[in-house]
């Protein structure tokens, strides 16, 4: 569905000329980014909240450590999709999810702490 809309758009652009198409496209991408939400995951009591977070493609997810103990956010995929440095209390880590998929992760210091981000 999406693809056919895009192809239709391209055809119109060819008619109208590349200059107009380029400007219009740029504008639509910017507004799409503005709409994309930033989602938060809080670390409290040695757990990720929410444990499973579902977000649209392009979302920036920010983790905040609210424990008195340091934690990390490390992808369990091979190769790792993302890996934070050690977050001390109130420190944050952000990652932009630009591709759809399921991203399981854990705290490499306390491996019982696991979570996942589903990107649709």
């Amino acid at each position, binding site marked *: 569905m999406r693809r056919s809309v895009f192809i239709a758009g391209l055809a119109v652009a060819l008619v109208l000329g590349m200059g107009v198409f380029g400007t219009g496209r740029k504008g639509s991408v910017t507004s799409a980014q503005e709409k994309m939400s930033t989602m938060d995951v809080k670390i409290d009591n*040695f757990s990720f909240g929410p444990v499973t977070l579902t977000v649209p493609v392009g979302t920036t997810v920010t983790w905040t450590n609210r*424990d008195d*103990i*340091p934690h990390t956010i490390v992808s369990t995929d091979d190769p790792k999709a993302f890996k934070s440095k050690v977050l001390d209390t109130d420190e944050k880590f952000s990652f932009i999810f630009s591709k759809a998929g399921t991203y399981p992760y854990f705290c490499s*210091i306390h*491996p*019982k702490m696991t979570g996942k981000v589903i990107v649709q």
Partner: protein
Amino acid sequence: MSDKKKDELLHDHNNDGVNRRGFLKCMAWAGTGAFCVMQGGVLKSYSLSRFSELNTAEANGELSFVQISDSHMGFNKPANPDVAGTLKAAVDKINGLAAEPEFMLHTGDISHLSKPEEFDTVDQILKSAKPKDVFYVPGEHDVLNDDGKQFLERYGKGSKGAGWYSFDKKGTHFMGLVNVMNLKAGGLGTLGHEQLEWMEDDVKHLKASTPIVVFAHIPLWSVYPEWGWGTDDSAQALAYLKKFGSVTVLNGHIHQTMQKVEGNVTFHTAASTAFPQPQPGKADSPGPMKVPAEQLRSVLGITDVNYVQGQHALAVVDSSLA
């Protein structure tokens, strides 16, 4: 049941990790100090008030060393804003022991965030301890961000792999193990294949009568897996030690004292010198436990171990910093 019988820890026959009666008894001791003597695999325990019932030869064994753990230098939250102060208090306690320990074991989490200055501070404070030799194993807080490179450079000279090693003191064989590296999502502590192979080889030539002391950060018994308090492949490690009549396992990580006896093996965890953690399952998480300031030192401590040659006994004494 005689008084003596009543204070003995019972064997755990179902291998489920925690002997309930023994566990409860040990928890009751936490912060008050306990004295345990292992003879022929049976841990005989005495509260410190019954300490005088033991003779001096038992209390002042031929091999004496002290274990400290979880100094978390750099931690500055309300549970203890002065971890340097309490580590100094631990050193004072060590320097005041009747039988001077020959050396110290530090069972990890030396630092809180693996920062060079945190390790430096601990090194500086431990310099004032009478025992000059310190044997270290890393905690997960000591290997942050660099896969343990700094730890190895500072404390791992002559060690194998991620920092494991063994040495002998007066006929007792000591093994320092590393179970905080390459942790897997959803799992517990890990020793790993390479270390297990080394262990098997390391003890192969020892006589079954050799007393063994194993020390590592995360408990090598299943204290409370829900909080990650255990080691996934510890059963394999312990299988290599089956032939030995006396095996003592010393761990840290859980910031409270706990004991368990299983066959020939006595497991013991030491208190932290920095902050206490809750009893298993008694809080939402294993995070630092805030106690009233005046009570803090009563829940921190050191562990003093004496080995009496010829008696096949290792005595483990926990003392609080209060």
